[in-house]
């Protein structure tokens, strides 16, 4: 039996409501992910040689950069406590692993940063960033090609 105009409107309205709720749920889930990110820890080279693996809390990490000590190319993760942790994964590999992480983003050839740890920034052609717990700024942490995405995610 064909639907009368009134019934059709009611059913359309119900469908609209359901669609609206789904969108809302999606939005809530996305916001939840920002509070409770899917990846919380990251395996790094342990400080204690007796340890096989050390899981670093990503919520403590301010930025990730490349480092060369004694001719070793490594990637360094710096925490708000001022401690540095190392991994032999390249920055691009870490970026791939953290691509779903709502707090981290690549901001230059040499840096990935934790957006939730920024306490100040200096606006110039690039961006120097100050992080929670760290006294010195990271100079040129955000370079021009990443600037637009950085500002979008920061706000």
């Amino acid at each position, binding site marked *: 039996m064909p639907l009368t105009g009134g019934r059709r409107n009611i059913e359309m309205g119900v469908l609209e409501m359901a669609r609206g709720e789904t969108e809302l749920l999606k939005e809530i889930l996305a916001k939840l992910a920002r509070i409770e990110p899917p*990846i919380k820890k990251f395996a790094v080279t342990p400080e204690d040689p007796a340890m096989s693996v050390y899981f670093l809390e990503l919520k403590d990490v301010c930025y990730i950069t490349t480092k060369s000590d*004694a001719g070793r190319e490594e990637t360094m993760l710096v925490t708000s406590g001022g401690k540095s942790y190392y991994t032999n994964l390249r920055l691009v590999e870490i970026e791939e692993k953290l691509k779903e992480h709502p707090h981290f983003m690549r901001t230059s050839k040499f840096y990935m940063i934790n957006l939730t740890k920024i306490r100040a920034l200096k606006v110039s052609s690039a961006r120097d960033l100050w992080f929670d717990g760290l006294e010195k700024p990271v100079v040129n942490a955000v370079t021009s090609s990443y600037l637009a995405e950085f500002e979008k995610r920061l706000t």
Partner: protein
Amino acid sequence: MSKELQKRVERLFLPQQTIISRKNELIRAGAIVFMQYQRGRVEAVTTDGLRYELPDNLNHYESLFKGYFLRVHRSYLVAVERIEGTFERFPDEVERADLRGKEDECELALTGSDVRVPVTATYGRAVKKALGISSFHNLVPEHPADKKLRQYGLIDFGWRELYGLNTADKPAVEAFKERWDIKKFSRERMLSYFRQYGVNEINKKRVVKNIIYQMWRWITAGIEEPSDGNIRSMWYRIKAVLAHHADILGPGDVNTFYSTLLEMIEVAGLFRYRDFGFMDMNAPYCEVNDQHPEIVLASEKIGHFLFIRNLAREFGASFICTKGEPAVISLEYFSDDLHEKCKGRPLTVFCISDIDPSGYSIERNLVKRLELNGHKIARLVKLVDTSIFASDDIAVVRFPVVGFEKKGETVKPVPPATMSQVTKALDWFNELQDPRLISEKDKGGGWKIVTIWGIESDAAERKLIEKRFKDGLQRLLQKKKAKKPARR
């Protein structure tokens, strides 16, 4: 979607939930590091180290706090968010080998507790899945330098700190040493680095190896004084400090120390004796002269010392008296002195050695060691060979090297000779092929008694040796002169 949302919100609030102990104390789940079943009791261990007896079994809490507490062992539940790292697992008691799977087991370090919780193979895979990792042991790609050391059983303790250390800053150096000096590790700390797999014992050889390696690192970095004596004095220097902290080495372990040092230097080539500053006891028996340092006159006999020294000095050549097999440390010092004066010129070695397997081995090792120390050998000249003797004299001066009985292909050494000595002597003889250095006698029954003979280099007339050296030297110098472009 709404179920997913509900699940995630509930998980967010799990740490806020409370558990009631048998004594009606309220414990917040977020304060619990792990739960343990032992001797019929289930206990919750909190961040302040307190233990609370719980009324239900582990299965109950596992299902109630799904996703928050994780089963890692038959007797343990741990708070996932408190997992800080993994260690290799060393069970205190012997376990059935077929139940063990090294890849799927480990010990967990937990934030808020010093207790290491074991993960057994039964739960290993589920734990890895919950942590989103593929391995408990090789998760972080290993640097090739670390891998090389690990495969050799070495740990470069605090290398990064050492790299950035200002060696002039004495308090910083002392603090660094206090943190990483293996000799000062407690027995427990030693166990965590140098435990034998499956046994709760320290692997002494690994300890010794790592101490030697650390001493080398620290001496070359300039934060430790080199040895002012010999290898034995270094052993006592190590042992004295070790005794205060973890008395794991006894007087009998001195041989382990010697053999390990020898293996690391002479087999693995990790470093040199000279790096440690050991004395060269043979120092008075060698010299590098200025005029022709690249001409080396060598003898295995201490009895030739004055003879070759005078000869070498007369022509401005270098000399070395090896006193038997050349000592690795002597060749290190001698080679370095040669490098200083030769400036890359290849060496010509005039050698006086016995005509027997040992003499040939000494000669070969001398050349090998010089090469290992970075020298190119242009020529090796044997100053004493059978041609220096008249045939009649050989029968008089020769001495038996080994005797053996032979029937067809069967060979039996005649005591005191051993089979390995016979094999070496036969190899040497086959290279030489001089019939004057072998004799055979019939024993009966198809057996023959064979003797291989050698000749001491002392038996050669010194005047003849001297003439050979001078002739060889002259030819060499003439060749060099001919090669030099004429000056305009």
